[in-house]
């Protein structure tokens, strides 16, 4: 083995070339459209269609033409309110549920959990029309509640918190009970602080899903005054002449919050999606 070691290493290195070439192509295709989006936000329509790959000087002009016809501030405000409210409520409701199913589990609770998991298979399309009727009857069309309520309790998030509650040592709970701590206090003062990574992961995926949600807000937010950022950019291309520079700027603004969260909390982002199945 030993004498042949040096040549093997060089051939091994050459064998790596296709792998790195493949990764480079994938990375280029992956980042390319995003790079183009960022660059185009600073370019004129002419430059965008001329496929300029260099940053331009038209950023401020694009912003002016964007805000001239579109109420970006209002759409941003509604997007933030909807996404933050959904995230906060979802974290509270699903974490206490996941904790409840695991720590206080009984045959009946396990059965209920099984039924709730079935909801994962219900396509949103099949609930959309009756949900619209429900909120219309309640006079909640165009309201934040109508956007938020259907997104609070999700089987996936309950499962995520149930998994994390499973890893929470039961002896700690027993010890706290002996010390006379109330059940709610055990959850609030012991479970929540130790499960910060789970909360971060859950917050990242919930916020991203809520921020990017399009179909349901489009259905229930009938009045354009209440529209969210994805709705704003979707309506942008309705006209005959499209200002591509302004459009790409609007798309960039819409994507910025989730891109920032992704880069800052990449670990939580990954954990949020895979935490359930690990």
């Amino acid at each position: 083995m030993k004498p042949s070691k040096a040549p093997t290493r060089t051939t091994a290195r050459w064998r790596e070339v296709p792998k790195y070439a493949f990764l480079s192509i994938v990375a280029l295709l992956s980042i390319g459209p995003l790079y183009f989006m960022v660059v185009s936000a600073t370019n004129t329509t002419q430059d965008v269609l001329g496929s300029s790959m260099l940053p331009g000087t038209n950023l401020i002009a694009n912003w002016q033409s964007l805000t001239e016809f579109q109420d970006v501030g209002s759409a941003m405000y509604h997007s933030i309110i909807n996404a933050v409210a959904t995230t906060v409520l979802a974290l509270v409701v699903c974490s206490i549920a996941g904790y409840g199913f695991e720590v206080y589990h009984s045959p009946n609770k396990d059965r209920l959990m099984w039924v709730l998991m079935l909801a994962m298979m219900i396509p949103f399309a099949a609930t959309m029309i009756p949900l619209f009727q429900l909120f219309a009857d309640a006079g909640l069309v165009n309201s934040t509640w109508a956007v938020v309520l259907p997104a609070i309790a999700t089987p996936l998030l309950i499962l995520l918190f149930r998994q994390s509650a499973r890893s929470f040592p039961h002896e700690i709970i027993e010890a706290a009970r002996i010390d006379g701590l109330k059940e709610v206090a055990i959850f609030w003062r012991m479970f929540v602080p130790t499960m910060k990574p789970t909360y971060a992961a859950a917050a990242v995926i919930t916020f991203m899903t809520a921020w990017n949600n399009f179909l349901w807000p489009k259905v229930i937010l009938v009045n354009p005054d209440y529209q969210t950022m994805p709705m704003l950019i979707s309506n942008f291309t309705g006209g005959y002449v499209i200002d591509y520079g302004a459009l790409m700027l609007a798309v960039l603004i819409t994507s910025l919050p989730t891109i920032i969260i992704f880069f800052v909390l990449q670990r939580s982002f990954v954990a949020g999606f895979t935490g359930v199945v690990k």
Partner: protein
Amino acid sequence: MMTPVVRPDRATTTPAKRTKGSPRYSSPAARRRSLTGWAFLIPAAALIGLMMFWPMFQALILSFQTGRGSNLDWADPLTFNYDRMLDDDIFRLTLTTTLLYLVIQVPIMLVTALVLANILNNPRLKWKGFWRTAIFVPAAISLVSYSLVFRTIFATDGLVNDALIWVGFIDNPINWLGETNTARLVIILGLLWRWTGFNVIFYLAALQNIDPTTLEAAKMDGAGPIRTFFSVTIPQMKPMILLTVIMSTNGTIQMFDESYNLTRGGPANTTMTMSHYLFDVSFQNNPNFGYGAALSYVILIIVAVLAAIQMKVGDKRD
């Protein structure tokens, strides 16, 4: 199977005086604890019941009704909406298109994701953080955003045509979004761009859970990397592969954002998905909730049947 046969736990209905000596609980504290547990999970259960199960049953009822807006009555015959579907050319077109996206895009995406995950999982890989970030980042972009970026770069005078002409692959710009086949191709390319990295995340998680001793054992037995991959790695990843197959199938069958924003369903409805058609029927021009509900039940049934088949196939071969 779907009926929510949730019997209320006896603890919640038992009169208070039965606490002492109740055979169900060892102590009043245990009973109180059980009640606390129910209180913890009731909000989520109630919301899922009201926001998912109730509308699902309501949609079934609705699918047997006809009328304008909220003026709905039982259809005559009762299956009127379902009968109408059989003669609805647009419905059949959207069904075919959606299934076409499914059978082309999902296999390509999952195989690519599997290959990428294996490359990324190699401990000796250089610049691993960069590759990971580059591959994952599309999963952070909203579907509407990337649809509009793709709409822009695949415009007749857009980036893709310019690049292809520059390289010399084509002489004249292709009208990507104006022709059925190319427009469908753009949708599929978009789906691949947005979702491949997302699935890599899952496969990487599965690869990191593989027992390293099984890989060493395979090496000792003289198995090459390809053989090891198919005989040792893949079988251990099967639950995760099944999960990603079900997830991507569900997602593609329900696809709306790309159809609505990237191609607007055109040309001539040939890129339109079922959900997009459902949206048009239910909420555009003359809303028809009854017919919309019937269409939505077709989506529900397809999702359920495909998931059942996939789970059956996934369980086999062990």
